[in-house]
């Protein structure tokens, strides 16, 4: 009797486990479905996105090169991403070091302040920065609205929280005695930082840098308010094209973006396992 019950229970668990896995698989498919369909569309031979395709072709990828709008958008996005990440590292890594090392009143508040740009919705952030740029332009007389500097400073804002978060996380398990040992052995602060601290927190710095880059590269809502006439980032160029129409050429551009971001993730993964930092 009891063994029969046990068998029944086991059965319920097996059934439950398979139901669970099936449901999980369906959800994963749902998440990936749009990426699969846009990739498929990029190989259609005809221009109209009607299913089934008349045939397959690679010509849409070749046509990207000739489309200045997307090439310029891609270049601007890459430049912005790199510049914002570099600046973000320059101010974010020291800030994380300070938060991890020093105890002072208001430390927790400061920590929350540095993470705040992630908490403000993108559209609100964009509107606020736009108004700010209007005021700044009136006050200084310099051309700030729609300028690259304005755009870059916005991106710097959304990049800092990522650097701080991930570097701070990598400092949490840090063994301070190593630094003290180095200093006892005569290393000055800079040498200690370069030879001991930096190598130890490197995974966090790399992860922070890549997340920061991706956050900047993919940013849409905030950037919409900050770009100047005739100059757009890649996500905005994609959005504006899609508002007009969808065809395999925009699909090819999208695939390029997917591949770039996927590549960045794979590189990050070599330093830190993605499943441990997200």
């Amino acid at each position, binding site marked *: 009797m009891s063994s029969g019950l046990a068998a029944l229970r086991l059965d319920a668990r097996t059934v439950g486990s398979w139901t669970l896995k099936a449901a999980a698989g369906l959800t994963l498919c749902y998440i990936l479905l749009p990426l699969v369909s846009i990739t498929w569309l990029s190989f259609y031979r005809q221009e109209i996105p009607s299913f089934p395709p008349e045939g397959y072709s690679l010509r849409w990828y070749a046509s990207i090169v000739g489309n200045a709008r997307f090439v310029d958008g891609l270049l601007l996005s890459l430049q912005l991403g790199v510049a914002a990440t570099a600046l973000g590292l320059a101010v974010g890594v020291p800030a994380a070091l300070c938060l991890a090392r020093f105890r002072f009143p208001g430390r927790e508040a*400061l920590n929350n302040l540095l993470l705040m740009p992630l908490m403000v919705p993108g559209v609100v952030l964009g509107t606020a920065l736009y108004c700010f740029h209007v005021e700044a332009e009136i006050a200084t007389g310099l051309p700030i609205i729609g300028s690259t500097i304005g755009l870059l400073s916005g991106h710097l804002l959304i990049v800092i929280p990522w650097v701080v978060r991930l570097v701070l996380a990598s400092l949490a398990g840090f063994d301070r005695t190593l630094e003290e040992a180095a200093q006892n052995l005569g290393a000055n602060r800079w040498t200690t930082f370069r030879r001991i601290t930096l190598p130890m927190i490197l995974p966090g710095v790399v992860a922070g840098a890549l997340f920061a880059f991706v956050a900047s590269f993919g940013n849409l809502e905030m950037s919409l308010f900050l770009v100047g006439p005739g100059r757009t980032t890649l996500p905005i160029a994609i959005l504006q094209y899609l508002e007009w129409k969808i065809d395999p050429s925009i699909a090819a551009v*999208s695939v390029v973006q997917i591949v770039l971001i996927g590549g960045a993730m794979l590189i990050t993964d070599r330093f830190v396992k993605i499943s441990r930092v997200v």
Partner: protein
Amino acid sequence: MVGQGVQGLNRGELTSPAPAPVPAGAGAGALGLARGRRKAARAPAPTLDERGGSGIAAAALIGPATFIILAGLLVPIAILFRYSLNKFVPRLMMVEAVTIENYVKFFSDAYYLGVFFTTVKVALFCTVVCLVLGFPLAYVLARTRTRFKNVLVMLVVLPLFVGNAVRAAGWMTLLGSKGVVNFALIGFGFVEAPVEMMFTEGAVIVGIIAVNLPFMVLTLQSVIESIDRSVEEAAFSLGADPWQMFRRVLWPLALPGIAAGVILTFILGMNAYATPVLLGGPEFKMMAPLVYGQMQLGNWPFGAAVSFVLMVTTLVLTATAGYRLQKRYRR
């Protein structure tokens, strides 16, 4: 090593003094925030050299970043609020004033109220669906021991980083009148003529759910990972079936993470921009596109006011949810 700091953050969440954090609407920007605020990093006590070495070093380290956020974020939000009190006069654009007429206009006009409630409705619905669809995947990801785990997590993270416009494009391909879905529906004989699915509320909901699911899954995954597997085994050995185990053990223990995930997805839903614009078309309006539209029209005071309403609504709803939960589950 990096993970050590991030894992188990959810455990601290309910004891933290403020409600769960409010994330960004912008794509990847919000990722991981749902993990809850970091508890104070467990840094060792300062060494002699630091106590003497002063606040100057600390200030020099953290000063630049703090200045950038203060000047670049808080000042603009203050200006945004100030703008929302100004008057809009056609042709003169913006006239300085202190009036709440923009807010009155928003809350007394049936059209804007309609946009507001549509947004809340869509966001709520998508959040519930995300929770139901996301939980199984989160559980499987959290409990997998195979080497595919990392690959699976990356498959969840990739769409999130790719951006909303590209994913909306994927849905446009699928849902169009000559898309795969209509092809299948006609092929199986369910319908005679293509169903018009694009530019409907349904399309927007389908799109937003797909956009928000990764956030929900990753949040739930981290909290489930922090729950010791042996409590599940204990429930089973005491005779619980899977459903009872879920209801009586897993659900209550995962509640902080569930709350964080629900809040995060709700906010993302409220602030969705690209998905409603691309899948909803010109007729279907949600809050974020409304803000952009007003700013484009040059009505900065009203755009600023709508923007502020959007921010305050999400903040208040989030804070309320976080506060109630904290009161209930204070440990």
